[in-house]
């Protein structure tokens, strides 16, 4: 097929299209879903017994801010990735800085770790996974009708960011301060779920 013939085929009977844009409405929906899921997670599991003490410690506050930043930047980045064009480097940097910053912070805490076995915490991973489901589904549905070029990256960003909400729930419900527990049952699941997102995106998002 010659390019000119293809152009003629494409431009014949051209129908008007409804412009797709992502704006305040989409961010507001993402924020509402995120808050609802965090609220539901905390309501179902209950607040940790030592919350009053731990909530005032600098590393706890910093960790929560990192997770919040990760969730917010993932929405912004996913929306940017869903439309062809330049992606702000600052958004990528912020996303990676929060994700890796959180992981490194937990690894750093391990230096003072001297327990032989980490606290068991499969439930924490379940919380991360189940909390991430609805926010990830909402984001996938939002970007599905856009034109995602890099589906793998978009999938990772969406699901890792949504899983960060689950990790945020864990910050409120999980009483363990054992760094090994945090690394295995809080941090690792976010990365694993993010990688699952790369595969899911290839199934869910159409290739343009």
């Amino acid at each position, binding site marked *: 097929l010659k390019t000119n013939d*293809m152009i003629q085929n*494409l431009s014949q009977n051209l*129908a008007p299209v409804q*412009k797709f844009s992502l704006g305040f409405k989409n961010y507001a929906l993402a924020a509402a879903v995120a808050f609802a899921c965090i609220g539901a997670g905390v309501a179902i599991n209950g607040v940790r017994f030592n919350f009053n003490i731990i909530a005032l410690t600098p590393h706890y506050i910093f960790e929560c801010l990192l997770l919040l930043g990760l969730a917010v930047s993932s929405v912004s980045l996913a929306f940017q990735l869903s439309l062809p064009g330049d992606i702000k480097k600052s958004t990528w940097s912020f996303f990676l800085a929060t994700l890796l910053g959180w992981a490194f912070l937990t690894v750093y805490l391990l230096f003072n770790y001297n327990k032989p076995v980490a606290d068991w915490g499969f439930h924490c991973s379940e919380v991360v996974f189940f909390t991430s489901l609805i926010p990830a589904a909402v984001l996938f549905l939002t970007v599905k009708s856009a*034109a995602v*070029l890099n589906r793998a990256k978009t999938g990772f960003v969406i699901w890792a960011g949504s899983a960060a909400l689950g990790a945020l729930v864990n910050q409120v419900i999980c009483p363990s301060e054992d760094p090994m527990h945090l690394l295995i049952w809080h941090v690792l699941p976010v990365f694993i779920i993010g990688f699952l997102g790369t595969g899911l995106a290839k199934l869910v998002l159409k290739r*343009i």
Partner: protein
Amino acid sequence: LISSNEKLFAQLMIEAQKGDSSSYETLLKEVSLFLKRYLRQKISDSEQLEDVVQETLLAVHKSRHTYNSDRSFISWLLAIAHYKVNDLLRISYKFKPTELDESIVDESDSQLDELLKKEKTEQVMKAVESLPAKNQMVLKLLKIEGLKISEVARLCNLSESNVKVISFRAVQDLKASLGGLF
């Protein structure tokens, strides 16, 4: 090259989004010329260049609803084009002539080599026959008949990207079934 086209392309795309066929045709023609000039530095093979331009035009068509006049048309277009170039590079890297192909056409004077070659060819053909009918046809047209991807797509009534995917999978299947041989 970029700034002089920006306004024209943006204006034509806005009209095209409203359903104006002639603006759209003009836009695609201009864009294809622009892409050919722009991508020639990256892709020297004229056939591959044509493929990337066509793939990009198809992607532009599919995602034309996502162009927003607040943003640069050229950035929007080039993001798609770069993605398609990378896609082509990825596919051609995976799809590069395999050792398997080279060994089939490898000429040797010795009788033993001839026999081995014949045996290998038979096994390859047998493996090809075991592929699903559609994969078989695409592979034969591409690799044996030496047709272009666009021609195979037209003959088999498939999209070009579908042809690439099918042929890639067929080669993978062949590699898997002939793994011990080559």
